[in-house]
């Protein structure tokens, strides 16, 4: 290097150019690029075929269920993982003779995939009479990045999704953002990969291959022992509430999604019910301020039209029923389903 040639202090390290010809350099660069591309393809295949990511499996199965529907339904239930494992449509069918599915997915999506699933349903069938949207106490506040989720989760890219009203970007930007995440998982799915690598290093890759039993109605009974200690979770939430760090405002993106959903309710003239998911009874004791804030915002939404309703009843369960702070075991799903059924269908 120019300055290195004049360096007087000979003890300092310098830069010395090597000796390489263009063919060797080209070969080295191409082999590195090709290897990275091949690793990327392999990772994409592994991620798409594996069942270790609970969220992926649930989302994918719910979309498959929706796409496999042959006949219109009386109702559909949308929401997050709390109603996913608490609401059993079979019970409604047996007791009320109403046909419906549980399309609730995971909280990461907020109300965003409620909108997408509903739009996709309405593209294939006439509107159901009733749409129920059930969310846990901490979901409306979540900030959701729709494009990132589309790139990460195996959701069919229907036209309504790629045109995505929830994105501030152009159609092309939407498509590019989504596909670059899907095509280059090595770069964009690093959390999943890190998890996989960690499990592999611990020799626990087999635990990733858990299959989730989601029945034909979309209900996912959960019988595994509690993964998260409910009391610990409660203590953390309580600390956040006391320190006023627990959010109680609906996020902007959720409000946008809800606005589109309520428009659909008016345009297609179906009854839209916002309801709560399940919670541990002890949580409701520390939650009243947050709950009242959420109730207020739900009620404001419900005021907008006569066929939009909010059922503010919290569905609480004792410790033995809980698998986490807002997820119940399969044995208690009947109780939640029946409670919901009574509140929705016994009040004309």
């Amino acid at each position, binding site marked *: *290097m*120019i*300055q*290195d040639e004049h360096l007087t*202090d000979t003890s*300092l*390290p*310098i*830069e*010395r*150019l*090597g*000796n*390489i*010809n*263009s063919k*060797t*350099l080209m070969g*080295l*660069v191409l*082999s*590195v690029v090709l*290897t*990275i591309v091949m*690793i990327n393809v392999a990772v994409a295949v592994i991620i798409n075929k594996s069942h270790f990511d609970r969220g992926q499996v649930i989302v994918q199965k719910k979309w498959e269920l929706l796409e496999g529907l042959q006949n219109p339904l009386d109702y559909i239930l949308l929401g997050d993982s709390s109603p996913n494992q608490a609401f059993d449509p079979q019970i409604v069918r047996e007791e009320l003779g109403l046909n419906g599915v549980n399309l609730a997915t995971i909280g990461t999506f907020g109300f965003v995939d409620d909108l997408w699933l509903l739009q996709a349903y309405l593209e294939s069938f006439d509107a159901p009479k009733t749409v129920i949207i059930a969310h846990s106490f901490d979901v409306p506040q979540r900030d959701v990045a729709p494009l990132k989720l589309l790139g990460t989760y195996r959701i069919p890219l229907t036209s309504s999704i790629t045109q995505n009203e929830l994105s501030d970007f152009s159609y092309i930007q939407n498509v590019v953002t989504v596909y670059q995440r899907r095509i280059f998982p*090595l*770069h*964009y799915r*690093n959390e999943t*990969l*890190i998890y996989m*690598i960690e499990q592999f290093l611990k020799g626990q890759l087999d635990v990733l291959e858990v299959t989730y039993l989601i029945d034909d109605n979309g209900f996912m009974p959960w019988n595994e022992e509690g993964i998260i200690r409910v009391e610990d979770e409660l203590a953390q939430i309580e600390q956040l509430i006391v320190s006023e760090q627990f959010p109680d405002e609906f996020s902007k993106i959720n409000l946008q999604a809800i606005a589109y959903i309520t428009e659909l309710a008016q345009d297609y003239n179906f009854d839209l019910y916002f309801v709560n998911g399940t919670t541990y009874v002890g949580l409701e004791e520390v939650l009243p301020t947050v709950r009242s804030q959420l109730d207020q915002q739900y009620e404001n939404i419900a005021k907008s039209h006569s066929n939009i309703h909010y059922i503010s009843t919290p569905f609480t369960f004792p410790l033995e029923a809980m698998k986490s702070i807002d997820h119940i075991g399969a044995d208690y799903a009947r109780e939640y389903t029946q409670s919901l059924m009574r509140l929705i269908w016994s009040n004309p």
Partner: protein
Amino acid sequence: MGVYMIFNSQQFMVLFAITYVLFLLFRNNVNIRNGILLVASYIFYGSWNWHFLALILLSTGVDYYVGIKIDETSPTNPNRRKHFILISIIFNLGMLGIFKYYNFFAASLFDLFMSMGIYLDPITLDVILPVGISFYTFQTLSYSIDIYREKLKPTRNLLTFATFVAFFPQLVAGPIERASNLLPQLSAPIQLTPAKIHSALFLILWGYFKKVFIADKVAQYVNVAFSTTSVNTDVPVIVAIIAFSIQIYCDFSGYTDIARGIARLMGIELMVNFRLPYFALSPSDFWNRWHISLSTWLRDYLYIPLGGNKKGQWKTYRNLMITMLLGGLWHGAAWNFVLWGGYHGLLLILYRIIGKTSKMRSVKKQLPTFSIVAQWFLMISFTLYGWLLFRAESVDQILVMTKQIFSSDIYDGTALLDVSIHALPLLIMQIAQVRSKDLLMMTKQKLWIQFTVSIILLLLILIYGHHETTEFIYFQF
């Protein structure tokens, strides 16, 4: 424009790809080639805040004019030459003063008078610090001074000069280039060889790795430990300081490597800015290895004009201290930077004093390995403590954390382990560089080694890298 560009952002990658293709297409036509570089540089700089472009245009115009005027003025008319060089000095330092230091000095003056019970109505300007202003003002200033000293002939090509000032790879965080190095390269035919491209690709890859895998990762611990709100964190002070020393080195040298790699891909050589500074054995050795473009600038344009070491012992110490205090202040308008500069000034002075009277030489002859290890340990300890002064949010925090260094924290070791894991590749590479005395030793390894290392670095960047683009630390200086 809405999106600012840093080297690890997609926007920059797109800009560079387009610029590079056009550059290669027109590489034989100097004016078109420089035109392409200039447009790309202004897009790059304007992406941060297009208003800043006015400053860089002004700086370019003033020093271009001053350079020509000094050259046109006969040496027999020194007053007129002095008049022109003063225009450049006042303009460049004035711009720095207004945009970087005005609020700091106004607030400090306010505090000083308040401490004496005098209320002074503070007049503060709500100015945003233009990115990279400290770098390009020093660059243009050195151009005019070199012409004044008759060490350089001015360029009469405004396009070339504007490209020299705004050259995007080094615009916002250096190296602070000398016109004598960069201007001739911008005016000459480009010579691209496979060896240059090879080393450029290595610099870019290694630079990204240092920034994304090491600096941004260890930053998480640094930010927690130095947060003003956190009192007792799980990150012990000593780990936080070590983490910051790794972060600032990897962040800044990572940026420099990428900048130099990008420039070299275009056949342009930028200064080596780092020569394994944490292997320094003395304070002067450290400054021969750390931010070399700044330390040599300060030496040539401040220390030597002050008299350097030619006017006696005490004046040498005075000159060292002034240079280092101003060098510290260059990093930012805050007292902790001044303190850091003063601390290094003191180390340099003490080293000169001890170095003259030391009997260590005889010990060194007897036990060279021990002596070298001891010297290294002493120097790295001083350097680490300096980083505490540099990073601390306040003088109070310096005092509290200094006490905590010597307290026996009980913690689970997770932070230290994680920092060590991220720093391990750096350590391995640098030991190899020290042993070979060659910063590009990796490019001379067997092909399979180069292939394997490249794949590992790329995979670690892709999988473990911090993907949210974070600014490089030295952009703020």
